[in-house]
């Protein structure tokens, strides 16, 4: 018997699913090439979903629904809310770009976007290994199709192929790891697995063997070294609008499943997975930052920058349990969550500017395409500069506070190894500052190669300005978002 509460818990997902189908149908009757009715309907739906998730998150209740299959908690609802908003911004930025490239013909971008968001929501709410896996597959399958949306474009098709092969392998890893866990504990339920592992009755070797595969699968999805190979190629090859769709909202879902699987499910194995994350983090920081220096393609540079930023997130995740003590766990995981949310916010604005500068037949993805942007449009140059300074972690942009909270989580553990990691991360972010500054240099110090004025539709202009301003304003008053992340994580840990 499914109780009423269960339906309430998944209400946003139901709205999303129904509307995705409705919009797919509606689009059949839309004739305009820019798909305005579909676009507006999609944005309205997403707005409602974001609002619902936000209200649920405000309520702060934790509901287990459908026999523990899914959970609706404050952390999940906030992440879903942010992911939905991120998807809205992605669609706003991406529509003119997609329209110029004949990618809107069947309205698939909107429908697939909504289905990928549904996948993310399921991942975030999943409280069962299989549900999480199903959500993941829904997300990735939609993404594969989206990357391949420009059928006649060789690079995009190649990127889709690479993405598909590597993504399928990652899913395989994850599934294999999860099945090992199932074999060892006899349950797919995250809470039951936690209890079984914590009981100490289960053979450690089996668990760790499974854990290796779970972590590898998650590392693929996050895109951290040495499972990062797909990131640069897919980021560069995919149409920029789709790159943003992959680079933005899904990171929040990836963060959520890391928390669901590793923290909620396998916290008793923290000593083991923290070591693995440490290795991944060091590798990502090193390779991401060093490789980014050599890039001339902005999308590729941002891909390597993502790798290094994910390294930072992992640093936050690996500082939770110190000597078997979970006192600092809330601090550490909320710093990672804050990092992820602000990273997505900044990435959105950065790609927004790239999309804005792209015109029909011109991709604007080389760093040199940004030359003299300040003279062509001070506003957009300003937005991009704010994003670059934020990613580099320079105050007063929000990216600084993200780095600060992660470093604080590391240092407050008091472990020499952690402090050494913090110093290492800080030195790596110095290298990072170099290539972010180079973008600022190109925009502000170089002379423009074209005098074309930059023009954008009103919706793009408005959203981009707000997005850029948020990166700065959240830097001036970061307290609210930090407290929100902290509360969400504290609640998650309590249950």
């Amino acid at each position, binding site marked *: 018997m499914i109780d009423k509460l269960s339906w309430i818990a998944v209400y946003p997902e139901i709205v999303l699913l129904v509307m995705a189908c409705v919009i797919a149908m509606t689009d059949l009757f839309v004739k305009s090439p820019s798909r305005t009715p579909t676009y507006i309907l999609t944005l309205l739906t997403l707005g409602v979903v974001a609002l619902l998730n936000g209200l649920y998150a405000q309520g702060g209740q934790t509901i287990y629904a459908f026999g523990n299959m899914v959970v609706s908690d404050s952390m999940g609802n906030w992440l879903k809310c942010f992911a939905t908003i991120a998807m809205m911004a992605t669609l706003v930025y991406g529509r003119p770009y997609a329209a110029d490239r004949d990618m809107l013909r069947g309205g698939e971008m909107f429908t697939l976007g909504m289905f990928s968001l549904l996948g993310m929501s399921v991942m975030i709410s999943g409280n069962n290994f299989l549900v999480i896996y199903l959500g993941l597959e829904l997300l990735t399958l939609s993404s594969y199709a989206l990357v391949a949306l420009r059928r006649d474009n060789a690079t995009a098709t190649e990127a889709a192929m690479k993405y598909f092969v590597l993504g399928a392998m990652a899913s395989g890893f994850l599934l294999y790891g999860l099945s090992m866990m199932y074999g060892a504990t006899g349950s797919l339920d995250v809470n039951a697995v936690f209890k079984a592992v914590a009981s100490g009755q289960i053979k450690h070797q089996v668990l760790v063997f499974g854990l290796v595969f779970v972590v590898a699968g998650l590392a693929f999805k996050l895109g951290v070294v040495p499972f990062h190979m797909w990131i640069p190629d897919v980021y560069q090859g995919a149409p920029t609008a789709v790159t943003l769709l992959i680079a933005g909202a899904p990171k929040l879902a990836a963060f959520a499943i890391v928390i669901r699987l590793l923290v909620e499910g396998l916290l008793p194995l923290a000593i083991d997975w923290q070591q693995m994350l440490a290795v991944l983090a060091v590798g990502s920081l090193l390779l991401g930052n060093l490789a980014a220096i050599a890039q001339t393609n902005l999308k590729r540079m941002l891909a390597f920058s993502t790798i290094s930023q994910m390294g930072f997130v992992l640093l936050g995740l690996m500082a939770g349990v110190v000597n078997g003590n979970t006192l600092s766990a809330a601090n550490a995981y909320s710093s990672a969550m804050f990092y992820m949310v602000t990273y997505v916010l900044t990435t959105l604005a950065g790609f927004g500017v790239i999309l804005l500068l792209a015109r029909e037949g011109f991709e604007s993805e080389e760093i040199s395409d940004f030359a003299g942007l*300040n*003279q062509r449009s*001070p506003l957009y140059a*300003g937005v991009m500069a704010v994003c670059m*300074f934020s990613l580099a972690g*320079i*105050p*007063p942009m929000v990216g*600084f*506070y993200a780095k*600060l*909270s992660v*470093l*604080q989580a590391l*240092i*407050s553990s*008091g472990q020499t190894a952690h*402090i050494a990691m*913090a*110093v290492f991360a*800080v*030195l790596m*972010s*110095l290298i990072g*500052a*170099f290539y972010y*500054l180079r973008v*600022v*240099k190109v925009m*502000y*110090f170089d002379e423009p190669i074209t005098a074309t004025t930059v023009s954008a539709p009103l919706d793009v202009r408005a959203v981009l300005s707000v997005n850029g301003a948020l990166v700065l304003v959240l830097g001036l*008053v*970061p*307290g609210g978002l*930090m*407290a929100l992340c*902290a509360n969400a994580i504290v609640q998650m840990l309590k249950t």
Partner: protein
Amino acid sequence: MGLLSLAIWTPILFGVVLLALGRDEHAGAVRWLALVGAVVSFLVTLPLYDGFKLDTAAMQFVEKSAWIERFNVNYHLGVDGISLWFVLLTAFINVVVVIAGWEVITRRVNQYMGAFLILSGLMIGVFCAIDGMLFYVFFEATLIPMYLIIGIWGGPNKIYAAFKFFLYTLLGSLLMLVALIFLYTKSGGSFDLATWHKLPLSGTAQTLLFFSFFAAFAVKVPMWPVHTWLPDVHVEAPTGGSAVLAAIMLKLGAYGFLRFSMPIAPDASREWAWLMIALSLTAVIYVGLVAMVQRDMKKLVAYSSVAHMGFVTLGFFIFNQIGVAGGLVQMIAHGFVSGAMFLSIGVLYDRVHSREIASYGGVVNTMPRFTAFALFFAMANCGLPGTAGFVGEWMVILGAVRFNFWLGFGAATALIFGAAYTLWMFKRVYLGPVANDHVKALKDINAREFLMLGLLAVAVLYMGIYPKPFTDVMNVSVTELLRHVALSKLN
């Protein structure tokens, strides 16, 4: 809103308005708005001096409100005798710099003026912050406008200079960030400076902290041997940028030593004082000699800045009243004098577009009024009695003699180098017959330049003749600082 908040946010607000609304089509209005902004920002700092109580070492005009509650970071401002003058100095130099950029900057005027106004507000924030994280945010945020100023309006090699400036100083401050978080953890979750001053720390912890702070502040001062960024940056930066860099930005580092290194790690400071003194003395003597052989005027003044800042750090680390106060006076004096030196070079550069000493000669024949100013500032740079430059150097030497005769002797000898390189440059540029057609065609300074140099000349002269208002403000705070540093914090 308190006076300090007003001092910080007034220029920033004007700067933001300029960035948002300014267009090159109405550059004239932009300039006037910038000037109004700078003057208003200076005026709002004056009540600080007026209302400052001389008999207490406690923080005054304190403002405190929660900022980031999760990390217990407060928006906590206050000034004492050490920081008060720098607030006024920053706001004053900002006015001068806006006047200096009046005719010279013709493209993107609003961004130029906006950057300087915002930079000025941020630097005042550094001097007023008494919360560790707030200090760091202001300290780092100053890099952004300066990077843009150098990179957009700088000389031919500006990009190299802008990157060198940003990355060099960022490296130092990132290590300080780790130190700040370490202190936060050690003190049980507080970024409050007063709490940190009282916090007992082990010897190793103090040494590590001392060197983390050293990394940030020594680069900023800059001390020998991490001074190499300064000449490169000064050469490429626009005149206004050089003036602000030399006059204020270098002081952020020296100020950091007094506010962070010495009171937080007093035992380590005393233990490593020999190193600081050695580095300072090297800066004074060796860099003084290096300055002598420069062919580029800006480079020469840049090296002279390093030497003068060597006096400042020397004064700080001999731990006596007159030395520390002398260092502070020297900082303020150097703010006026080095600013004036760079602006003078700017006056010549705007006309001839060369910084080479060899391109000039006999300027006095065509620009007599300007040469009078230049001579006056050159004298101040050598430390002639009656100018601001003399007071600080004399106090530091006096302090050094008390500490150790030979140290004082060494520092005093170095004054000769200072006189040598400054006067030799003056001779080659200004005196003698007219060297070439460029010099022949020079026009003397106009009213705007006269005003800009005149303001600084008055300040230099006033401080040289009657330094009492400056030293009175400092005395109590310096005594308290020295008393605190003398106590051991080892646990």
